[in-house]
């Protein structure tokens, strides 16, 4: 027997119907209550008694209105506390429509969280049309809602993780998400390079507690050989959930009385620790803590945390590999270029280089400047077909072959032919490379330069009036066909004149405008009034702008200017 309305409205058609209604109500899964205008519950079916955590009808009928409800925290979807007056059943008595409401309900005593859709319909006096009772139906949607929230959380977390390669930043955002949506506190620890634990992200819904959590970590960071907690999960790779942490277990875990005090003031009730799992190894852990004021952590939360740990672990591992690759590419690239340009007395020298694409790709363009015998220097610019490690290997071969060749015979044409033979010998017909080799003697008023091209665009000679001339005879690209045709050209550089060597990537940025070298030539018109490095920087930025910041090929520039007599 349950509490029932004492007026006859529910069974005005006779006791047989009333019994039938009661039998039906007892067997529906939804919790159903009937409340009068004073707020007193006059009927509750078995499911409703279970929902309210009551053993019998007596508890309900003897309770003061509001007393039962005070055992629950009733929140709306956003987590804001709900005024009972806004519940659909109460609205009926105020003559308002009862709009179904999604309610988050937390049992204060246990921290259990439930979600309900609450609907209400009026029981009206047939004559006066007055609302006598509100019949409330509570549909438990906890499972559906949890699954929905878990999916929404994972989607949000995935977006955050994909947003940046800076994993310290993304993990901090993940900690914030988890500390607001799953538990109150979330901390991420990773295994550092020297095998020590490092806290990389932490957040707590309560700022005061956050300071406490940070203090705890600084003072009592666990050592890796400790039997429980984070070290245990790192060793085993298995997630752990500790529900209902007792003071005794805290005392057993604490290293000293101060540690115990700190742990106690955290008021942790449930703890989940999951591995930050990359495909092949455990990188660290994600720890979630709920305190005794919030909701309990469940097995469903554990599943969600395990998924989060896998997703985040994979993202961290990719970020690490990406950074590592970028570092390797950067070191390799540096090794393929001269660390600094040598001083050539009487000349100004400048170079610029910009690899296209992502920062972890090694470019195929290269340049080099080095002395070759007394008062004699060699300038090289080249372009190896392709990108990445294969191209880097050929670049290294080209650079060092040319350096060695210049020791035996400093003639640019001989050096170019030697490189061609080396490419054919080592990578027959597989690698193509273009080069421009210039040899420079010490200036005697003017300077004599000798130049040979192997498939490379002709460099530009810029005179003191800003006029440009392509110099050198086109030669065959190296490494691909036999025989090659390479011609050596000699020319004079006068004081104030500039020789500009470039790779195809530079003029190519203008190709969509049906122009090729002419924009480059226009930029060179200003050369006489500019320092050489300014000229190169101006060309590079104009080319970049023309390619909208994303050139599809590498760009290298190398400039040599004979100082004007006045300046010397």
């Amino acid at each position: 027997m349950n509490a029932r309305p004492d007026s006859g409205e529910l069974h005005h058609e006779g006791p047989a119907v009333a019994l039938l209604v009661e039998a039906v109500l007892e067997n529906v899964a939804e919790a159903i209550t009937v409340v009068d205008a004073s707020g007193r519950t006059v009927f509750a079916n078995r499911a409703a008694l279970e929902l309210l955590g009551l053993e019998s009808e007596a508890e309900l009928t003897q309770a003061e209105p509001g007393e039962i409800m005070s055992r629950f925290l009733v929140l709306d979807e956003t987590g804001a506390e709900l005024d009972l007056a806004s519940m659909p059943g109460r609205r009926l008595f105020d003559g308002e429509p009862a709009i179904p409401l999604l309610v988050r309900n937390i049992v204060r005593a246990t921290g259990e969280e439930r979600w309900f859709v609450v609907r209400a319909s009026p029981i009206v006096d047939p004559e006066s049309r007055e609302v006598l009772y509100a019949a409330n139906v509570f549909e438990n949607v906890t499972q559906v809602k949890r699954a929905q929230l878990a999916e929404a959380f994972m989607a949000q977390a995935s977006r955050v993780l994909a947003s940046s390669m800076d994993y310290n930043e993304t993990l901090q955002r993940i900690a914030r998400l988890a500390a607001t949506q799953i538990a109150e506190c979330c901390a991420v620890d990773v295994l550092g390079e020297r095998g020590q634990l490092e806290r990389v992200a932490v957040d707590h819904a309560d700022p005061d507690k956050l300071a406490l959590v940070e203090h705890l970590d600084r003072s009592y960071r666990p050592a890796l050989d400790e039997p429980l907690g984070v070290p245990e999960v790192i060793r085993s790779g298995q997630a752990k959930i500790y529900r209902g942490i007792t003071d005794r277990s805290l005392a057993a875990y604490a290293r000293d009385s101060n540690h115990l005090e700190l742990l106690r003031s955290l008021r942790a009730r449930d703890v989940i620790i999951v591995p930050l799992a990359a495909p092949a190894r455990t990188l660290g852990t994600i720890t979630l803590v709920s305190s005794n004021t919030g909701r309990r952590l469940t097995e469903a939360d554990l599943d969600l945390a395990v998924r989060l740990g896998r997703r985040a672990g994979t993202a961290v591992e990719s970020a690490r590999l990406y950074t590592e690759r970028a570092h390797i590419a950067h070191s390799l690239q540096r090794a393929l270029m001269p660390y600094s340009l040598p001083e050539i007395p009487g000349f100004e020298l400048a170079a610029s280089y910009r690899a296209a694409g992502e920062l972890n790709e090694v470019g195929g363009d290269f340049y080099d400047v080095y002395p070759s015998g007394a008062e004699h220097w060699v300038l090289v610019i080249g372009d190896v077909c392709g990108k990445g490690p294969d191209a880097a290997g050929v670049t290294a071969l080209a650079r060092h072959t040319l350096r060695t060749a210049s020791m035996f015979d400093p003639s640019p044409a001989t050096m170019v032919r030697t490189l061609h033979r080396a490419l054919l010998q080592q990578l027959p017909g597989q690698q193509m490379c273009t080069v421009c080799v210039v040899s420079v003697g010490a200036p005697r008023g003017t300077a004599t330069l000798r130049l040979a091209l192997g498939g490379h665009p002709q460099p530009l000679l810029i005179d003191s009036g800003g006029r440009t001339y392509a110099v050198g005879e086109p030669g065959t690209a190296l490494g691909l066909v036999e025989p090659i045709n390479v011609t050596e050209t000699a020319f004079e550089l006068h004081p104030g004149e500039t020789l500009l060597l470039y790779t195809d990537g530079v003029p190519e940025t203008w190709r969509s405008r049906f122009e090729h070298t002419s924009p480059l030539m226009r930029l060179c018109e200003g050369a006489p009034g500019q320092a050489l490095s300014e000229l190169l920087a101006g060309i590079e930025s104009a080319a970049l702008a023309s390619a909208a910041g994303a050139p599809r090929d590498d760009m290298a520039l190398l400039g040599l200017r004979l100082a004007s007599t006045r300046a010397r």
Partner: protein
Amino acid sequence: MATYEQLRIATRTTPDRVVLELDGELDMVNSPLLRDACAGSDVAGSATLVLDLRRLSFIDSTGLKAIFSARNESRRRGQQFAVTPGSQQVERLLSVTRLGEHLRTIATPDELLV
């Protein structure tokens, strides 16, 4: 960012030759398409392979390498190999690299090879 035109390759077979019509851009990203097209059985079985470059708007050094791989493979099979002229940019690169001198060039893809 520049819009990267893609490459389409159409294969046309006549009694005496296979013509691969390259339409678009031949660069590092899509030069494997040319390699795949050349590996087709209809290409291998023909006496002559012609790469029709008249609709090729752009080529880079990787693209040049791909054309010479096709030429070398074709020679190895004992085929005749020829190309038609490409866009201004294609012709410019062939002339700067002097690789054009190593290709047999015909004005139209069906021109007789003697």
